[in-house]
């Protein structure tokens, strides 16, 4: 059997964290905990993105030494997922902050963070 590399381990961790986040999202009743579970979910996703761009025994895509500047393609890991993950993190930040502000406002309305208390619209 092939040796399990760092990329598989981190990918697996990514998925596990993502699933943990999902579990929290679906089962926690406290709104803040749900929002936190969302950040967990996002983190898992981000780890997955980075893990996918990893290549065995390659280095970071920063060409700060002359050696890296020739035949670059065979020496570095994929720069694109790293760019994507940056975007993903920033979006996650925006969404999380807005979610938290929403939670704050909900709390102001009913003095409760119990998600089952907010069923004003239904059917």
């Amino acid at each position, binding site marked *: 059997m092939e040796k399990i590399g760092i990329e598989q381990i981190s990918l697996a961790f990514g998925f596990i964290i993502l699933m943990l986040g999902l579990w929290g*999202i679906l089962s926690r009743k406290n709104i803040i905990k*749900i929002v936190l579970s969302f950040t967990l979910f996002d983190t898992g*996703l981000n780890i997955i993105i980075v893990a996918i761009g990893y290549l065995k025994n390659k280095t970071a895509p920063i060409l700060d030494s002359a050696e890296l500047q020739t035949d670059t393609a065979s020496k570095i890991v994929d720069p694109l997922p790293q760019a994507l993950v940056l975007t993903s993190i920033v979006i996650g930040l925006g969404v999380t902050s*807005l979610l938290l502000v929403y939670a704050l406002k909900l709390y102001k309305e009913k003095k409760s963070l119990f*998600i089952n208390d*907010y069923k*004003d*619209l239904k059917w």
Partner: protein
Amino acid sequence: MVNPIYIVAVLLGVAFTSGFFSKKGKNIAGYLSMLALGFVSFVSLQWLHGFLSEQQAAAQIFTTAFKPPFSINLLMGKEEAVFTSLINIMGLIGGLYLFRKLKETGSNAFIALLLLIMGLNVIVMTRDLFNLFVFMEISSIAIAGLIILSQNVKSISSGFKYMLAGGLISGMLLLGTVFLYYFTGTLNIDGMLQQNLNLVKGSSVAVFLVITAIVLELKPFPANGWGVDVYEGADAGISALISSAYATASVYVFMKLIPVASEQFQFLIAAIGIITFVASNLMGLRQSNPNRLLGYSSISQIGLLMAIIGLSSVIGESTNFIVISILVSHYFAKAGLFWISGIIKTNSIRDWSVLRHSKILLVSFGIFIFALVGLPPFPSFFGKWELIMNLSGSHNFIWVTAILVGSFLEAAYMFRWLGYAIKLELPSEIKPVIKLNKIIPVILFAASVITAGYFTGMNHEYGKLINYIPLAFALAFVLIEFLPVFIKNTLAIAGLALYFYLNYQSYTDISRIFAAIFLLGGILTLLAGYAYKGKRLGFFPFALMMFAGLIGLIEAKSTLEFFYAWELMTIGSYFLIIRGKKSITHALSYMLFSIGGAYLIMAGLGIASIGKADLTLSILHQVTEYAPLVFILLAVGFMTKTASIGLHIWLPGAHAEAEADVSPMVSAILLKAGVFGLLILLMAMGEQFIGKVSIPYLLSWVGALTALMGNMMAAFQEDAKKLLAYSSIGALGYAVFGLSLMSHLGWLTAISFSITHFMLKALLFLAIGGVVWRLKTKDMYKMGGLIKRMPFSFFSVLIGIIVLAGVPPLTGFSGKWLFYQAVMEKQWFLQGAVLFFSGIIAFLYCFRLIHAIFLGQLKDEHRNVKEAPFWILVPQYILLAVLLGFSFLPGSMLKPIGNMLLPFLPDGAIHWNGQLATTVYGYWNGKTVMIIIVGIFSVVFGWLWFMNRKARKIKQFNIVYAAERPFRPETTHFAYNFFAPYKKAIGFLVAPGITNFWNRIDEGAHAVSDKFTKLYNGNGQTYLIHIVAFIVVIYLISFGGF
């Protein structure tokens, strides 16, 4: 052409600039934002114009110096131009609508609006998957921001649910995107389309995640509770933006990405779409909050689009036409409806009668509802038609059925709502405040959807053949509504007369008869309209629309023209019927039966078009596949208009509640449209069989039973107009029976009977209408003794019922005579017996009209009643003259009709010798019979008069008042429950079984609706569970396991 990248640059630039303006500068921020939205609308419209007129080629817009797939590129093609135009215009007009609200909140609110529109533009144009994700996030955060423009617990909690769902969905999208990149090495959508992504499990799972995420954005049932809540919780202006701009963009994203999926998966999504369509409309049935109802309707429309796009491999190249035409209708209508809802601000659709404070809003409301339901002349009419033609033309009957069921449900709650607005009492406490910036968008969109309909028609192969002149004539009356009745009525009559004069020669034989019934009949009934004073708002446009539809039926060459005319007639007559006093439920059931029938006709025409290159009406002559099915669908469709048994429950109320001159229009004229339809159907398709059973044979039973039921019901009515209405049902049963005979004599009977029925029913309805006009009541037991006060009306009714009852010497008898000849020839004696029996019952109720209304004692309160208005009597006497003429010279009517029928059914024709008709069973001479009968009558009458000249008169109520005070005074009237003994004996036959049947269907639908909506318990977390469950279940279905 302005580079579309400036759409992004300008919107972003202005949004960033708004940060410079603090509190005091928010006006400037507002005006700048509107300018920017105006500019981007201009840019996208300029491109659209280029594509439509100059054959402009699609343009790629690159960012940075590099070509895709290395950098992100945008595409501006024809579709992109359409969608960005829609989005930008919505941004501009929706921004105008929200202007005050946004200004209150400050420049940050304008930023959210600008960035929403910017994001939507990019997600339409971008060809890069990750870029799509980024800008979808921008749009959904902007929406989440706009939802809380008005902050209350509803908007905040709905926004929170929206963000939770959005977070989960965008997570799926991102995960799928990243794995697609892993498998393909590119993020460019075109690059992905070039690879087959469904070979490897991994990449097909990635495709699954991406597509499912996009589908979830479109709010599929049942993972859409969050969507419905947002529509209800947000400000109506924001819901309009979501429904019209956001959903529009999402649909395009779906269109763009769906080719990545395997064909099988596309079908699965189409199935989800159609389930969403039907289920959401079902749930719409039980909604009373206008915004929530509109939310369900929005979701259903998007579901329909999802289904259409998923089926694009079946539908073929007309997919885009269908999608855009349905989407455009939805876009204008839903925005307009949400806006109106935002203006009148009520929590119940029952309060929408406040719309009557503003005529223009009420008219717009009607336009939007019709556009949404897909009636002509709106874009969705053509879209739905094309869709049904394509699907049924390719044997996809299940899809057709589901689409029609869903559309029907939507029509049900939409027209119920329209009925509330038009008819329910005005709630006194609510009076909407109408601001200019809110009403202008509504009017603009109402006008646009009509224009869009015209353009859609012009872009449709058969749509451009439609003759819009009659409709334009009808609509022109909207512009002269301020004129008095007298002028408008004269113009309308002149219009009908001129049209008939110019065109009657171009109609073929049988068509000419019906054209005469429709147009000359129209003129006659319009004459009675001179009796009305004032302006009679809303009457003429719709009356003329009905006549436009009727004449369109006759002129139709293609199936689309025919269907268009059929629907036009329905719209016009619906508004005529709803004018009546207590007509709210009757008008609704009329509309529902008509729409149901129309859908059957549409499906029938679609199936008939299988394998046909052109869609002229002549395809009915060459139906090769499913001919019996086509026949039944069309026949049942037409019979909703002839009100045959089972489909009749709309008629009595609708006709009885209508105004004096509307009753004859809808009863004497409109019903003949169904007869005309059946006639051309039988002429084209002949006798069809289900197995070994002949369909016309079944039809003959339908006709016979309709006649029996109609006449029996008529006999038990207390309401004079209802009596006539039921009598119409019965009479149409005769006509259907005559047609079903499929013989020369049978058809001759049916056609001549239609003409006779037209005249006598117009006569009777006008006469009774005149009586009701004066007495203000329709109950016969409140009348009596009117012979002295209204002698002219009495004479009309007398002649009318003699014809109706079919006793000699008048033309009714010659009809009956022919009828029994035809029955004997065909040897359908059982049905013949049923008809004979119903003929006797006809006699019973005819008698009541004379007896209860005109004979007996005059009521105290009617001592000073005047004769019916002159103008209501005029058409009656014209009709009387014609009726008597035909009775005297039956040959002059029957002979030409017989000649017209010869090419179709040459056998068994009547031989004419002057006015002497001979068949194998006997002979008939109208003139001789007339002279003999009149002779006998004069003798007997003279003798009676002589004997009774010393008769003593007694008071009417002298026995009853001697003993006790009656609990219900009407029970003491001699005419009340006149046929009680018969009712006891055979009344069970007319127990309202059929009405109960339809009621039960209605209740059942509401109960299911109730069950479904319970899914949406309002808990944001439950909605998330729905979403995850949706993903897992769809995965299981599409992969058949994990």
